[in-house]
Structures are given as C-alpha cells and as structure tokens.
C-alpha cells in the first residue's frame, strides 16, 4: 500500500516538470489581438510590449493563415519571443469578418487552459490596422487604451458587460442573441471611440448597430445597468424649456408573454442630475417631469425593440422566458424569426426618486 502510494506520488511528478517551464522572459505578452479576413484566410494582428535596455516600447506583428492559430504561428516568425496570449486584454474582430460565423475564428481561445477568457471582445469598423496604429495619439500602449475605454463604457452602461467566456455561452444559446461593443474611428480627430453596440443574429454580425443612447436603453431593457446610466432631454412645458438630465437609480422589469404578443413593463426610478428649471420641490412639477419622461422613454424603448426586430437579433433575451414557460410560442420555429415578427410593446413608468442632493 505504502509502496503503491509512493509510486503514485513519484509518477505524479511527471505531470508537470521543468519541460513545462516557460520563463517569463522568454515570452511576449500579447495584450491585443485583431482578427480580419475570411474563413480559410485569416489575418491576425498582435500588439505587445517589447523590452529593451530598461524601457518599454510597443510594437505590432502581423500573421496570416488558414486559422487563427496558424496566423499566430506565422506572426511568431516576426517576433523575438513566442507570442503568449495568456494576458489578453482585448480581442477585435473586423466588421466584415464578423459577418460570417465568428466562432470559427475564436475557437482556438477556448482550447488552452492558459488563455485568459476574461478579455473584452469588440467589433471594429473598417480597416483593422488603423486601430493598432491610430492616427491620433492615444498613448503608446493601445491595448491599455482599448481595455480602459471598454471598461469605462461598461461603467456608463454604453456597452454590454461581456467577456470572451460569456461570448461563447451566448453564441450557442438559441434563445438570446449576442451583442458586442462596436468601435469606430472618429473621422475628424482620428481617435478610436465606442460607437455603440453591434447586433448578432446567431453567430453572425447582422451589420446593424445601435448608437450610444440606444445601447444604454438596450442594457436597461436587459436590466444590466452599469454604475451609471444617464439620459438628457429638453423638457418643454407650457412654453417653458429646460435641459434635463436624469440618472437611472433602479430598474424593475415585468414581461407579460402570451402566444401572440409580448408586453413589457419597465419601472425606472430616477434621480435628477441636471434641471435648471426651478420648482422641482413641487409635486405638480415632479408629476409633469415623470409624465414627460415616461412618454419619451416609452417611445425610445419601443424604437430600440423595433430595431432589434428588424435586425432579427434578440439581444434582450425575450427568448429565455419564452423557451422556459411558453412552449407553444417557442415551438413556432426558429426563435429569431419568431421574435422578428412578434408584436412587442414596451411601456415605461418613470418615478423621480431624488430631485437634488438633499432629497
């Protein structure tokens, strides 16, 4: 018994050993990957820091191949040390590439236990190379720039908080569609910026995107608020005009699903962040503001849902309860098709919770 245990213990050392060693100085930390091309002809770009004489500089390397892994191996020929994507921060997929099945490109990421699945993923508009070397100065380390850009956007509810691991979950779900951050380069300044949300149908990018405000609304529809979610309006009442900014404090949703339609009710609790017009201490004014906001927001929420239906992308996840509790509706066929035709109405009721710092 003791002998067997000893043999087992000694054999277990074979599981790992010096041959698995990868000295930190012998690898290149890739923090940003961009994928473009089409299936069978993948072009990938890698951004990584290089270390020389005690200072850090940043460079990029390109590779191409039939798959992403081959592209990476190809890029290895042009770098000093082996490319290691275990510290990946951001993965970019070019817009045109995403229009075919994106899983074909990212499959490799899920097949190595060392890979970091907590990285962000985004769809970029246009030419990939311009994101690796933007014409405007965004700092030497573009990966950090994009990573911080996306994290800030998540805090402000602009984009869905989704990492590579969650992407695969959603990608294979039939009852919800993927939505990813959409990045473009601002024409005038040349700075890459968050443009909104890219909508997916099944595993393919539909080409339809939501703008920034619609993206916030989408996230509220999904009840996935970041730290902040702000809206601004021009409030008009009886000939008076006033700018108005509100912040969403709390968000309740209730969906009524029947076989031929979905009615969604949202109750938003807001705090007023900006309202130069005096009189918010009066109940009457608050009521007016609430009514105004309810009307405006109902209109906007419905607009977003309409856009989703046009794109045949159920990014909100209406399919989840349908699949669970309404087999008749679910059984009508492919959910994204059913979703696109289903009458969905959204009603928003706004309650002003806080009017200023003290109240």
């Amino acid at each position: 018994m003791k002998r067997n245990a000893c043999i087992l213990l000694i054999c277990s050392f074979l599981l790992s050993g010096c041959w698995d060693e990868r000295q930190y100085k012998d690898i290149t930390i890739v923090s940003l990957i961009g994928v473009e091309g089409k299936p069978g002809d993948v072009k990938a770009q890698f951004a990584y820091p290089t270390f020389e004489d005690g200072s850090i500089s940043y460079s990029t390397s390109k590779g191409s191949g039939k798959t992403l892994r081959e592209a990476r191996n190809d890029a290895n020929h042009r770098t000093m040390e082996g490319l290691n994507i275990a510290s990946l921060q951001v993965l970019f997929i070019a817009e045109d590439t995403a229009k075919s099945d994106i899983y074909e490109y990212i499959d490799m990421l899920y097949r190595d236990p060392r890979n970091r699945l907590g990285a962000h993923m985004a769809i970029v508009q246009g030419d990939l190379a311009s994101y690796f070397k933007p014409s405007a100065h965004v700092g030497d380390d573009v990966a950090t720039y994009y990573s911080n850009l996306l994290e800030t956007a998540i805090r402000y509810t602009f984009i869905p908080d989704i990492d590579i691991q969650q992407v695969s979950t959603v990608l294979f779900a039939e009852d919800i569609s993927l939505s990813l951050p959409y990045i473009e380069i601002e024409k005038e300044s040349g700075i890459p910026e968050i443009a909104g949300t890219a909508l997916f149908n099944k595993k393919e990018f539909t080409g339809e995107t939501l703008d920034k405000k619609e993206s916030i609304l989408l996230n509220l529809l999904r009840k996935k608020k970041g730290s902040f979610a702000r809206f601004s309006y021009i409030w008009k009442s009886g000939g008076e005009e006033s700018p108005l900014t509100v912040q969403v404090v709390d968000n309740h949703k209730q969906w009524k699903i029947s076989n031929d339609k979905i009615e969604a009710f949202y109750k938003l609790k807001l705090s007023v962040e900006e309202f130069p017009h005096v009189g918010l201490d009066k109940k009457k004014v608050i009521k007016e503001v609430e009514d105004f906001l309810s009307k405006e927001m109902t209109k906007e929420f419905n607009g977003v849902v309409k856009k989703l239906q046009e794109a045949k992308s159920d990014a909100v996840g209406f399919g989840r309860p349908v699949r669970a509790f309404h087999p008749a509706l679910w059984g009508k066929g492919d959910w994204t098709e059913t979703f696109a035709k289903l009458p969905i109405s959204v009603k928003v009721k706004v309650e002003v919770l806080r009017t200023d710092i003290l109240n």
Partner: protein
Amino acid sequence: MDDMVSTDSLILYIKKIFHNSSDLFVEETKWQDRTAVICYYTVMTEGAQVNLQLELIRKRASDGLIDWGETAISSVHAFSVSTLTESVSSGFVAVIFPETNLLLQIKMPKFAMRSPNEPDNEHVIRGSHDGFVEGFDANMSLIRKRLAIPDLVVQSLRIGNDTKTHINYVYIESIADEDVVADVKKRLESIKSNKVISIGQVEDYLEDSVWSPFPQFLNTERPDRVVANLLEGKIALFTDSSPTALIAPVNFFSFYESPDDYNGRVLVGSFYRLLRMLSFMTAIFLPAFYIAVIGFHSDIIPLELGKQVKLAVNDIPYRPIFEALLLELFIELIRESAIRLPTPIGQTVGIVGGLVIGNAIVSAGLVSNFMVIVVAMTAISSFVVPSWEMNMTIRIIRFPFMIAASLFGFFGIAIGTLVLFIHLMNVSSLKQPYFSPIVPFDPSRFKDVFFRSPYVRLKKQQKTFTHGEDKEGGNR
C-alpha cells in the same frame, strides 16, 4: 611525630590526586589539640570566608556540641578519596581529620555571575526584563520568585562521566502530566555520554526525531516565559552552566507566542499573533511562489504588473532559482557575519549588505529588483518569529520549496506543502502531538492558539496537551 608524618604524607597524597594544580590550597592547621588538613581550590572559594566559617565551627567544637560540624553550609562525612575529590571539584572546602577519619565539607563556592539582564535574543517591549544567568540557583530563584507554591518541584541529576554536568528539571507537580515527567527522567538517565557540555547536546538526546527540521523543545532565557509554560503543565530543563531553559512538550504554535502578547492588550496581542502566523506562510512560500510564477505560471500576473516584472527579468541572464539562491546566500552571509561581529560593526555590515549590495546587485544585472523585494520580505518575515530555533527552521525549509517550485511550478509547491504538513502531523515533542490543536483537531483551543483571548475569560486550566475523557490529563 607520627601524626606529623602522616599529615605530611596526606598532603602529598592529596596534591598527587589533584596533579599539583597550582590553584589548589592544601594546608595543615591546628584543630584544638589535633591537626587537620584544609583543602580547596582558591579560584572557587574565598579564603577570608573560609577563615570565618572555620572560626565558627571551631567555636562549636570547643563548646563541645555533638553535631559541631553540622551548620547550614557544612556537614561531616566519613573520609574517602571520592568524597574528597567530589567536594573539592565542586568548589567546596574539605577539612580532613586524619585521626578521626572524618571529612568536614563546607559548601561556599564562589562563581563569577552575570546580573540577570534581559536576553538579547528575546526582547520584549512590556513585561519583566530579567533573564536567566549561568547558574541554576540564581535561575531557580527567579522562577520561585514568580511561583510561590510548594508544588513547584526541582529534580536534578548528573550526567556525563567526564563533566558530571548537573541537569535539573522543573515542573509543577499538580499540573504536569506524570507520564511525561517519568519519560523525561527516563530519557535523561539513558544519556550515555562522557561529555555533556551544553543544553543543546541534551536537547539532541531528548528529542523524538533528531532529523526533523522542527525544534521539539522551546529554548528560552526568560523566566516569565518559563513560568507561563510551567503553568501549562510543561517541564523545563536547565543545566548549571547555561542560561537557556528547554521547555517541553511544546507544540508548533508555542513558538509563535511571545510574552508581549499577554503583557499587551487583547486586540493588539491577537493581531500580532495572527501576523506572526502569516509570517510563517510568507517566509516559506513567498520565494517559491515567485519562482513558480516567473518560471511556469506567468499567466496569473496582472498585465499592469506583468510589464514591470518582465522589464525587470528580461535582462537577467540566470534562471530565477539561481537569482534567489544568490540573494539568499547574500542575506545568510550578512546575517551570520552580523551575529559574530560586535554590535556597532554588525550594524554597519547590515547597512552595507542591505543597501549597498542590494542596490548594486540590481544595477549589475545579476538579480532582478522583484527578487530583491521577495527575498527581503522573506528575510524580514522569518525574523518575526519570537523563537530563534523556529526562525532557523523556517530559513532552512524554504530552500526545498524553492527548488520544488523551480522544477515543478505550483505543483511542486503543492506536493512540498503536502509533505511538510504530513511531517508536522507526525512529529511529536516528548510523545505529545506537535501540531495540536489542529491534529488532533480541537477547535475549542483555537481561540487561545491563534488569538490571545482575554484573561477574564480564561476559566479552565490551560494545558498544552490533554488526555482522558475530561480532557484534563494528569491526576488533578
């Protein structure tokens, strides 16, 4: 005349026994109407005192008292050569009466003695600042001063044929486990060595497993620490010539307790005790962890930190294990040299070693600055332990971990930890479990081991080891 000859020959004979040692005093003296021979080592006895005592005893004899020789420090024995040599060697005065064949022994040895200063290796902030000295009587008086109870028992025996070293063991009869006391006695008696010089040698003989890196006896020079341990039912061993007391049976966590914990306040004491436990982890695992991360698991470094780490290690020509061993070698050398040197120079060595070499070794590109941080942190952590032996143990056992980490990464550390804890659970101190109260598991004692619970709540008699159903042990 016949007497004179025999006295002279006796003196010659005594001188021969002691090989004509020049510090031996052998003189004939008049004792009433007879002669006597006074014999003692001048270096161990004060001559003036001898005169005073002899005067006193002479007076008693001339008064015709039957027990004229029996005073608080003197006694009369039948003369024999072995009594003579033993008395004189112990620093006593021997007065031989050749006619009556008696030997008067006066016990008044004089030894140079330090004052009971605080030991250098066990400083405390609050609490008593006295420490043991190189004499058992003085040490015992320090203990008796704190424990004015008749239950405090001292047993002594002599071991070593050549050195005749006194070994004393002290315990509290009503608290100590009698089996353990008997075991100590048995082990001491079984020491078959001609030379017993230091307490460390005795420790070797008494330990359950000599090859274990973990000390099974707590060494201390502080009376308050000994008293606290005696009250927990432990046994303290002293030699006559060493200020160090050995305390057993101890468990692993005893080494992390400092008198400061109990002299200070509850929250403070608990916090620092926990901090010390944490230092065990950092002192053993930190360099191994760093080596494993750099060599195998670089994926777990956050990117922001990773860039700095890579910048630091990129130009180092050696593997992390060599970097670590090089720095550890430096630190061990600095530490060892600082101990041997007088204090002012020792500090200089510390500064030169710490600042100058530390800085130069990084700029020379031999070692990365992260490794300096790691090794420095490890060194500091190992100095936190209040016990010197445990400190050394920790310094040693981190080397196998470093090698395991460089060969097998985290897996090596995991296997090493497994082996370490299996060993800790198997070690015993005087046949009592070393890793108690974790193995055997006794959560009710956790609060006193990991924290310092307030005195007002300590109701039960605290014992390190418990036996029997009432968990009280011994024969209270």
